[in-house]
């Protein structure tokens, strides 16, 4: 419970921020995906089972509050979590640039995945969503990537509760 409660609370807080404060700012189109940053941080610092359950729950919460009726985030978020876990052993995720590139690439992967799923699941073609990928999703991914190093260091320094015992300090190292 101690492992799950703090990131869950933070996830709900980030979701609330994404739907209210960040959504009403003038730059709402390129607001950073804070929940995705938390998901990727969990993939670096949390064990597979508890992290996976958390990410699954956060994904389903995202689906619940978005206008998507397929449960795309419930599927995509755990998948991204798994990919990030596979990548963390092979890539150096320490410092501004590696963290930025790590999150940027995975955000773009998730965007592509959603687009493919939307095209596959929708009875009508959603070709008109492709321009959205360039004009909205790409800038948003960049912003998410830029915010990541600051949030990662904040999680690491200020929120030791987010690093469960045994894996403490493994995020970004």
């Amino acid at each position, binding site marked *: 419970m101690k492992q799950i409660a703090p990131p869950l609370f933070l996830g709900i807080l980030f979701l609330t921020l994404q739907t209210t404060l960040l959504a009403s700012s003038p730059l709402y189109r390129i607001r950073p995906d804070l929940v995705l940053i938390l998901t990727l941080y969990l993939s670096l610092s949390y064990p597979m089972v508890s992290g996976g359950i958390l990410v699954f729950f956060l994904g389903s919460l995202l689906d619940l509050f978005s206008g998507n009726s397929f449960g795309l985030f419930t599927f995509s978020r755990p998948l991204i979590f798994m990919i990030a876990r596979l990548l963390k052993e092979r890539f150096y995720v320490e410092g501004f640039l590696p963290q930025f590139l790590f999150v940027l690439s995975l955000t773009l992967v998730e965007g592509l995945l959603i687009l493919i799923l939307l095209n596959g699941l929708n009875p009508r073609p959603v070709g008109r969503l492709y321009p959205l990928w360039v*004009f909205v999703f790409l800038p948003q991914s960049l912003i998410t990537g830029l915010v990541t190093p600051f949030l990662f260091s904040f999680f690491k320094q200020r929120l030791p509760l987010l690093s469960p015992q045994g894996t403490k300090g493994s995020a970004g190292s």
Partner: protein
Amino acid sequence: MSLRVKQRRGIEFFDALLMEVCSPFLKSSTFVLKTVHGVFQEYVFLVHLQKENTLLKQKIIDLQKENHQLKEEALGGERLQKLMQFREKVAASVIAAEVIGQDPSSWFKSLTINKGETDGVRKGMAVISPEGVIGQILRTGPRHSIVLLITDYNSAVDSIVQRTRAKAIVEGKGENRCQLKYLLRAEEVAVGDIVVTSGLGGNFPKGLVVGEVRKVEKTGQGVFQYAELVPSADLSKLEEVLVIAESPPPPPEEKPKKTKRASGIQKRK
């Protein structure tokens, strides 16, 4: 009278002399008094000026805050009044709701409102504002609901072009744009035309403004033409909306009258 004048003339000399002697003293004492008064007024008494200044600044900040709050309340009141006036115009049972959140992702276009099943909101109900159509209820909770905006690619609203009565389906384009689908090539549609709901879908009452045509293209071959429209309501700045709980029932006496007339005509024939 003349004696008094003579006496007065005698005194005048002494008066003038006294005045001449005293006036420099008076002048200098007045100057000294004024200077001392000035020193006290401008320096000694101003010791607490900084404190007073801080207090006044705080007071200004408080007043400004109060002013902003009052302005916000006045604007909110205006919006509610507009909403209530519109509510009276719409001949359907409506539920007023407040927008409490927007879609967390950029892929979908939705809103969260503070009314749910306990308030009578059901899936598929139309959501409108005084400016026009907003969308429809996608998901309901006990106290909250998710509204799918007309700009979402999953949204479809049966509509007609107000001027030409051309039928089409308004579909979302993702961003703040919609597309008129299945609009026949033969139909005359121009930029600036208003698109309204047809009432055929069942969810939306007839005649609600959906948006304004901004682009019409007849390039290529095919049965249909391409038209793009901008929603009449600014979907990014919504604060209060109305959920249509029940569409207005048809006038009860209309049908029997028609049948009576028809039977009357038949009888005459």
